[in-house]
């Protein structure tokens, strides 16, 4: 009788141990939104160690199999593939799931160039990358509004959907110089950039010369490009004079729209002007009276 009792006790213990060894498993959702906590259902009995490995996170905790495992919002802020693993006394079971970006919250807006000659075609490129508040690229198509505003000219607007988180456009520079405000926006999120539209090469460069004793004052008219925009101050204008003593050259920057120099010239001289590769007129000045 006593042997029979011991046998039953052993049988019961053996059964209990078999039940405890039932394979642990876990069932995470297929997809989770970044920054949202969620539960992972588990099967099995007994204590186990739960591991969560993501693109930027490594977490480990002791869990009770059969109960749901709560994953905190902070553990799933980075979009990407996560591996959830539980290890019980009988081994480990794993399952993968994806965290996807949350709603758009930030724009990385690349606008080039920062300076562009007026009237240049397709010269401005604007590229917007859409991110959520955790810096995950938002892959769901989102409409980005591009807007270009120039003073005293009608604004240009276009809406484009993102593709793999990117939207881009090319824009022409206007005929008028000055800053162009380029804006990309999604709802209330917007990013501003400024592109300076600058005058092109000097056009119709003209000089006048006046003798003052042994020197000649040479001055340009206001230097403008072919669209009538004033060429920026600092642009170098090269004056060349040829007289009996030889050649005289001066590289002078434009100040307040014009460039002027004082050249020491005796006798008659021929004076010409150029800026970069643009040539101007030529004047002849007589000798001292």
């Amino acid at each position: 009788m006593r042997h029979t009792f011991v046998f039953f006790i052993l049988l019961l213990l053996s059964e209990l141990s078999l039940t405890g060894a039932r394979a642990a498993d876990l069932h995470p959702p297929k997809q989770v939104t970044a920054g949202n906590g969620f539960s992972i259902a588990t099967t099995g009995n007994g204590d186990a160690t739960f591991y969560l490995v993501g693109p930027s996170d490594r977490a480990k905790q002791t869990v009770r199999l059969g109960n749901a495992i709560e994953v905190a919002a902070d553990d799933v802020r980075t979009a990407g593939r996560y591996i959830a693993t539980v290890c019980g006394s009988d081994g480990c079971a794993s399952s993968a799931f994806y965290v996807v970006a949350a709603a758009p919250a930030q724009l990385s807006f690349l606008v080039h160039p920062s300076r562009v000659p007026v009237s240049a075609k397709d010269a401005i490129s604007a590229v917007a990358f859409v991110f959520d508040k955790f810096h995950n690229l938002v892959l769901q198509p989102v409409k980005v509004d591009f807007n270009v505003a120039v003073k005293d000219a009608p604004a240009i607007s276009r809406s484009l959907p993102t593709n793999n988180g990117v939207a881009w456009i090319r824009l022409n520079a206007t005929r008028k110089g000055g800053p162009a405000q380029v804006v990309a926006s999604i709802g209330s999120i917007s990013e501003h950039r400024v592109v300076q539209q600058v005058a092109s090469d000097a056009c119709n460069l003209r000089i006048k010369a006046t003798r003052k004793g042994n020197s000649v004052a040479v001055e340009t008219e206001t230097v403008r490009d072919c669209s009538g925009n004033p060429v920026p101050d600092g642009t170098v204008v090269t004056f060349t004079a040829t007289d009996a003593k030889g050649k005289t050259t001066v590289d002078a920057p434009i100040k307040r729209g014009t460039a002027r120099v004082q050249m020491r010239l005796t006798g008659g001289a021929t004076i010409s002007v150029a800026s970069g590769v643009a040539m101007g007129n030529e004047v002849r000045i007589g000798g001292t009276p």
Partner: protein
Amino acid sequence: MRYLLALLIFAVTLLFVAVGWVTSGGLARAEIRSASTPTEAVQALLADVQSHNWDRAYARLANNKDIDRSAFERDLSGSYRSLRTYSSLEGFDVWPIHAASEQAVVRANLHWSTAVGPIDDVRDLKVEHQGSSWKVDWPSPNLPKVPPQVIPVNYLRWDVINRGPEDDWGEQNVDTPQVRIISMNPVERPDRLIILGEIVNEDTVPAYVNVNATLLDQHNAPMSQEGSFDKISHTLLPKQVSPYRIDFPGIKLKQIKSVRMDAKAMLVPASADPVIEVSGQRMNTDALGKKVLSGELLNESGQPVNIAQTLAVFYDSNGRVIWVSDGYIDQALLPQTPVHFAVDLPDDVAAKVQNYHVTVNHYSSGNS
């Protein structure tokens, strides 16, 4: 034995001192101290200049009563942090040009070793017979002195604020300037291949430029790479054009199939001043018979330019760049004070030159 060793060490020391004295030109200096000929007089004077013995050099002058000693010293050792102040007289060649019983003219070619390389300075010196020896009649130093004045300066300056390291990636930055190589011409010389041309800053902001050339062989493989180094105006203001020159010693034109040019530009802070006038430019022949382009530089601003470098580009009848040469000015450019310059070019090139243009690089202490 102990005394023998001491004597040996003493003898060896004496020998070393003697060798040092001879190699430093001591023998030559001793020989020319007597100055019994015009050439010896000039040699003696220059030997003293070389050893910075200004008192003795000054004493050798025939006209030292008419010349201020410090002016004489400044004439040869430089002032205003000019290139001459960073130079030393490495050597000299002297030969007579004209000689009579009481007067002579001696030509001296002074070889200066400077911070930017060797510079030769040719001077024709008058020598007078005084008493039993010859003495040099040193030309009165024409050291410029700028009269006290106020020069109003209203110059442009560009400062640059770039995107900071902590700024977001998408944050807008200022673009590098747009520059363009407007011409490139390979020229073969007996000992080298030279790439010549011009580059323009097409932008509205200043650019710091550098031009590199890579020679490609018959299989399009790179065989040599060189940069323009100081044969270019590195800082180009908007629409400014600079010549460039890149030398490849020991390479022949037939060895290469093509040249890969690379112009690099950076946005840098810069100032539009000083404006330097280059006047009286003309081609002529110097005292040594070399073809040169000479003229005068005039600093139109109110600040001295400590070191100036002229870069001359020469064009043929088709407007093609056929030569680029440069020269450093060893004296400072003081405001409103003309300074002579000359750059040389090979005789065969000079024969083809139809036009030329001179630009000036300037370095001022305390300025960028």
